[in-house]
Structure formats: C-alpha cells, structure tokens
C-alpha cells in the first residue's frame, strides 16, 4: 500500500500509532471480557492456559488501554469531540446519507457527527470502563454498594462501545472503500477527501497546510 502521487495526508505517524494501540487493546479487552461474560465463551481462555489467565490478560490489557485512551482523547477531542451546530444537526437529520439516498449531504469537517459520537462514546465510556474495571479488580475495602454497581456499569460500557466499534470497523473498511489507508500509510485519495471531509480539505488548502504526496508542503499556490 504505497501512497501515490497526489494523495492527501489525513493522519500523522503519532495518530496512527495511537489508533492501533487503542484498536488492539480495545479488541483484546472485548474478546477477553466476553470470555468471562458468557460461560459458552469460556473456551477463549484456553490459549492462555485457562480463565484465570484470561482475567489477568484482560486486567493488564486494561492497564495498557489507559495511556492509549489518554492520548486518543488528547489527540482527537478538538476535531472529533465537539459538535458544531447547525451543520452537524443537518447531517444527523439525514444520517449523512449513509442509510438512504441523499443528494447532497451536508459537508463535514475532519470527522462527521457519527464519528464524533463514536469518539465521545469511547472517551466517556472508556474512562468509566477504566474506573469500574479498577474497582472490580481491587474491590476489597471499597463500599459494597459502589462495587456492586461497577459490574452493570462495566456491562453497559460494552453495550455502548461494541456497536460503535463494529460500525466503525465496517465503515472504515468495506463500507467506505478507500478509508483504510488512512490508518496504514496515512494517505488517502483526493476524491475520498472530497466525499468524506470536504470542509477540512478546503480549510487545509486555504491555509496551505495540506500535505500532498509527491508535492512540497508549502505549495500554497494551489
């Protein structure tokens, strides 16, 4: 997957590392967590030598999830954490053209409201997962009523995060072809940008910040 001349840089190396760090820890947490949530999935513990080790893998992956979540929030909250009205509302009203035909869906910036909702869900429930998870790991000495409610809260976190996670996976691959290179090389086609983040593209071009593969960065004469 080598970028071609004219492709546009949408993510830098740090963003790609954070994305993969978060993605891998998140997927591992979901799998190991499900192994403990359903008796029928207890077999997921076999590769690591049993359910007890699966618990350990889950808990320590949770520790690795914390810095990934921290840097993800720090990196993306400006672009993905703030809804902008009224344009985002217009986009939500027509579901961005993802569910039924819309002639001209409202133009979005770097991230559309669907992605913003995903970011916010991960940010808010990610923090809640960390807090509830740590209390579940070290409950002794904590108030009984508090600990008791951490388990349903943890389950709620999965209920919120998993559907977003899967839809993100679908739309980042076969649902919106051309998206995946953004997390591998960081470069996507110009036509992809025109469809997915037209406002951002214009902004970058106007300010001369757009990085195009095979072109000098400060070619602001475009």
């Amino acid at each position, binding site marked *: 997957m080598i970028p071609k001349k004219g492709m546009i840089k949408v993510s830098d190396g740090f963003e790609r590392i954070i994305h993969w760090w978060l993605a891998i820890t998140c997927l591992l947490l979901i799998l190991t967590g499900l192994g403990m949530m359903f008796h029928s999935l207890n077999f997921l513990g076999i590769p690591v030598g049993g359910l007890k080790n699966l618990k350990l893998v889950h808990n320590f992956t949770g520790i690795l999830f914390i810095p990934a979540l921290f840097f993800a929030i720090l990196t993306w909250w400006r672009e993905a954490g703030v809804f902008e009205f009224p344009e985002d509302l217009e986009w939500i009203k027509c579901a961005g053209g993802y569910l039924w035909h819309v002639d001209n869906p409202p133009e979005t910036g770097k991230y559309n409201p669907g992605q913003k909702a995903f970011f916010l869900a991960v940010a808010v429930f990610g923090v809640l997962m960390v807090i509830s998870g740590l209390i579940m790991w070290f409950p002794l000495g904590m108030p009984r009523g508090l600990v008791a409610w951490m388990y349903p809260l943890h389950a709620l976190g999965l209920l919120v995060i998993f559907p977003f996670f899967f839809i993100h996976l679908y739309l980042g691959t076969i649902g919106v072809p051309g998206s995946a290179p953004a997390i591998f090389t960081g470069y996507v086609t110009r036509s992809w940008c025109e*469809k997915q983040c037209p406002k951002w593209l214009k902004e970058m071009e106007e300010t001369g910040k757009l990085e195009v593969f095979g072109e000098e960065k400060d070619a602001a004469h475009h």
Partner: protein
Amino acid sequence: MSEKVKLYDATKCTACRGCQLACKQWNQLPAKQTINRGTYQNPPDLQPNTWLLMRFQEISDGNGGVKWIYRKQACMHCTDAACVKVCPSGALHYTKYGTVSMDPAKCIGCKECIYACPFDVPRYDPETDKIAKCDMCFSRIDNGLEPACVKACPTGALQFGDKEKMLKLAYARVKELNGNAYVYGDKFVGGTHMIYVLPEEASVYDALPEKPRVPISVIAWKDLLKPLSLLATGGVLLGAFLHYILHGPKDTSGDQAGQGGGE
C-alpha cells in the same frame, strides 16, 4: 434427586459450637490464632477458613434484663443464588440436591460473588486467590451422609433431610413453640436450603437480612444488560450486512456517473 435442606432450630441450640468445629475438621480448615474479644464468637466473622460461625449476641429482653441469643451462620444455599448467577467460570454451581457447591479448580478469584450474595457469605482467600464457602459437605451428602455440622449436633438443633420433610418439621416446631418463633428461609430467593427456626425477629440478629433478594445491580447486569448486549451485537452484524447488500458501500472513487459502468 430430591432437594435436601438443613434445618437449624435456634430454640434447641445451646451454642456449643460443636458444628463449627466439625465443619473445620471435615473440611480440613485449621483455625488461626485469634484474640480474646470478650465473646464466644470467635473468629469475629466468617473467614476463608471458617465456613460456619456461631454468632453470639446479648440483647435487651425489654424488662431490664438481658437475653443471650445465637445463630449458626453459613451459606444459605439459595434456590435463586446470586453468586451462581454472577460467577463467570461456573465455579459456583447448583448440585442435584439444590445446594450451591464451589469448585476451587474453576475459581478465578474475581470476587464478583462477594458483592452479589445477599447474605454476605463468600470469603476471599488471598493465599489461594480463590473464594471459599460452605458447600453443605457435598462430599458427605453425595455419599448418603449428613453434613458434618449436623452429625456433630448434640441437641437435635440441626437436622438434615428431604426439603418437604424438613419444612414440615420446621412448621410443626413453630406451632409447637406457640410464640414468636417463625421459619426463616423458605419465602425468599426461591427458598434457601438452609432453613432457620428463629425465636427472634430477623432484624434483631447481626448480619441477617430481613428480606434477602438477588440485588438489583445483579438483575440489571445479568438479566438486562447481558441480553441487550447480545441483541446489540446481532443488530450491528446484521445491520452492517444488510447495509452492504442493500444500500451498498459509499462511492469515494470520484468517477463520474457512467464512467465505471461501461455504458
């Protein structure tokens, strides 16, 4: 196999603690040194190595006097057991006798049962990183014997047998006592497999809930959020598939209409 019940009649109990010792002997749970706290209740609470504890209390009799009351505390073996409901590994499980047994080999030390049990029975042992609790001497009852505590009881305060028979005995005893005594255990959490005949209100006793139930947090977790997460998973998998075959992927190629169609 018929359900078995252990009946504890507090009005026949002399608090000799023979049952507590027998429990330790049969289950090989050597005592640890404790300190004299001015009570026979020793150790102060259930422990990983104390699955059965005689609890002692002095209460006012309402006429300026003192009443000395006691209760045999151990796992109640619920029919609708919150610990079994939350246990992720199946270590806590129902037996064919309706009792709740514990398989230490399966326990992963997650402590979830501690915060589910309405009777606060399971105890965590940091040395083994496992939970420990009374299993109503499964190794004995499965071989036609009565639990060690029942075997040791010298006054007949403890009896063991088929559920119907024990309940009949309990209600007959309450009738015989003809006072405040009542049966505790058959009316909640689906009916416990340890049944009490108590001479005092439940609220009088330490660490004994008046109306035990599977906690709402457990119901919200296991009966609501767990099935909902399955539904949501199915929903997004099916939804994504239908989206792909009906709506189709988004065209980000930038081709003009007709160009890619070969018209």
